[in-house]
């Protein structure tokens, strides 16, 4: 039998994502990929995979799935969540583990991931990765273009997602301690490309305002509510290309930050673009978050990108072997208010 994970409940919206599908935007193909590339890399590091391997990206509410292989290694990184490992689908309770660690699971066990806390995105990597065919060089799910991932769509109950490896390698489990996933006070953005569609006063107003991420947000874009931004010459422009992080201002004046699944072209003026180094932190923000922006230069943005690349390269160095019952684990559990869950499970 093909080694697989069998989806019992898909959660709110769970897709397979890697670092995205670049090179085809000129044909109208979105880049897609993980909203939070740092956590994707962290999950893969814990699972022992190359950082760009496709993993499950769960939004807000995690999936429940069964292990259909002798044994395998999972790794969780991103938002906090109650992750229960049940001996079978009928078990009342099981071991509870926190995010930011790897775990070995065996055939028949059921992994139940609850609601995410302190973030919108959680990555679930499996050692060796999923055995899904890349579409145009990537396994990222493009739901609008219906390609990549699992049948080009979010997972559904009953899906059986094949794995590349039938067994976990024999090694210790790890946790990541000290990877900073906190949101910056202000997200850095470079002015343009259409900043001249806005008066200096409106640009100042934009950078001085605090916005709230609204419920209409999704993988295509983060819709913000707050101070409306006025246009100098109307809100329709002749369509041009969109970069991830573009902050477009439609007729309502309420900005939309375009995220991984954004369409390749669009017709609203874009006042500024969130810098690439701040996109992972932006991508993990949940609805209701307060968001504000700070202007930086392209050179400052490139320096920040270099710093983030070093952080990602250094993730492996922050991994701690789990065989020692690390106090860090207890601390993380406390942070997640999971201690009662552990006691229940132990009772």
């Amino acid at each position, binding site marked *: 039998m093909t080694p697989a994970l069998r989806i019992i409940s898909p959660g709110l919206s769970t897709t397979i994502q890697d670092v995205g599908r670049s090179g085809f935007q000129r*044909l109208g*193909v979105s880049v897609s990929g993980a909203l939070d590339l740092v956590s994707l890399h962290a999950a893969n590091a814990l699972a022992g995979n190359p950082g760009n391997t496709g993993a499950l990206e769960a939004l807000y509410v995690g999936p429940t799935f069964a292990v259909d292989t002798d044994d395998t290694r999972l790794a969780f990184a991103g938002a906090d969540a109650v992750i229960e490992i049940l001996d079978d689908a009928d078990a009342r309770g099981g071991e509870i583990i926190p995010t930011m660690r790897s775990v070995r699971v065996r055939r028949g066990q059921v992994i139940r991931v609850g609601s995410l806390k302190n973030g919108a995105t959680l990555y679930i990597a499996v050692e060796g990765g999923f055995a899904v065919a890349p579409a145009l060089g990537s396994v990222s799910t493009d739901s609008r273009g219906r390609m990549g991932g699992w049948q080009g769509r979010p997972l559904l109950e009953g899906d059986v997602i094949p794995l590349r490896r039938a067994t976990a390698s024999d090694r210790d489990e790890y946790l990541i301690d000290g990877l900073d996933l906190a949101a910056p006070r202000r997200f850095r953005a470079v002015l343009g*490309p259409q900043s001249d569609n806005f008066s200096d006063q409106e640009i100042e107003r934009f950078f001085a305002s605090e916005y709230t991420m609204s419920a209409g947000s999704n993988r295509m874009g983060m819709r913000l509510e707050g101070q409306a931004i006025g246009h100098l010459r109307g809100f329709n422009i002749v369509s041009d*290309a969109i*970069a991830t992080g*573009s902050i477009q201002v439609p007729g309502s004046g309420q900005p939309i930050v375009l995220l991984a699944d954004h*369409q390749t072209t669009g017709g609203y003026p874009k006042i500024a*673009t969130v810098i690439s180094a701040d996109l992972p932190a932006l991508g993990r923000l949940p609805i209701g978050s307060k968001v504000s922006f700070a202007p930086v230069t392209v050179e400052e943005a490139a320096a920040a990108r270099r710093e983030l690349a070093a952080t990602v390269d250094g993730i492996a160095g922050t991994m701690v072997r789990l065989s020692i019952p690390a106090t860090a684990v207890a601390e993380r559990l406390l942070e997640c208010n999971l201690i009662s869950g552990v006691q229940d499970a132990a009772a």
Partner: protein
Amino acid sequence: MLDYRVLPAGDTALVIEFGDRIDRALSTLVLSLAQALDAERIEGVVETVPTFRSLMVHYEPLALAASSLIARIDALMQKLGSSEIVGHVWHLPVCYDPRFAIDLDEVAKRTSLSTQQVVERHSGPIYHVYMLGFLPGQAYMGEVAAELALDRLETPRTKIPAGSLAIASRMSCVFPLETPCGWHVIGRCPVPLWDPVHGTSLLAPADQVRFVPVSMREYETLATRASQGVLRIEPVSEFVGAVA
């Protein structure tokens, strides 16, 4: 000297903007820069995305500084005046039958034309492919005859079928996948425009397209062959345009 502006789109993309209109001369400039830049194969350039009036250049700033990229683009601009763009000429079969053309009556009413006249006006011109966007393989083709120019629907439809041919303002598109859409649907094209397996689009920017009306019976024959994967469509000729 060519008139253009280089604008930042964050730290991993630049926009080279030639204007803010939909205009074939601007489009030719955009496409010739895209072809010239792609031919340079500059290390650190990830991809280029031509649009109506600008070219977006995605780059890796840790391999190629923005200032170096801009210098390379400025140098290319000096030679651009004499360059040509090359595209293909396509004749695309389209069925304007009311069973597909759900907005044909409404378009006729709003333009004070008969449905037959709408079809004639739409299938008359040779369209220029300005850009691909919104969906994989979706070509923006212009210009639709001025008398057919309508604003988008006030309330977009949640779903139109793959292959739908639609118009809005001076543009025409065939939507390669089922999609929400606020355009006026006036027909359907049986030719698949997007090959998801190979990641190829039938149409490319700079191509020229003429829509050839076919009957429902001809449509069905072509659609059946398309679903069997045996519908082959070849360009009728090459198109070569020059930067004015």
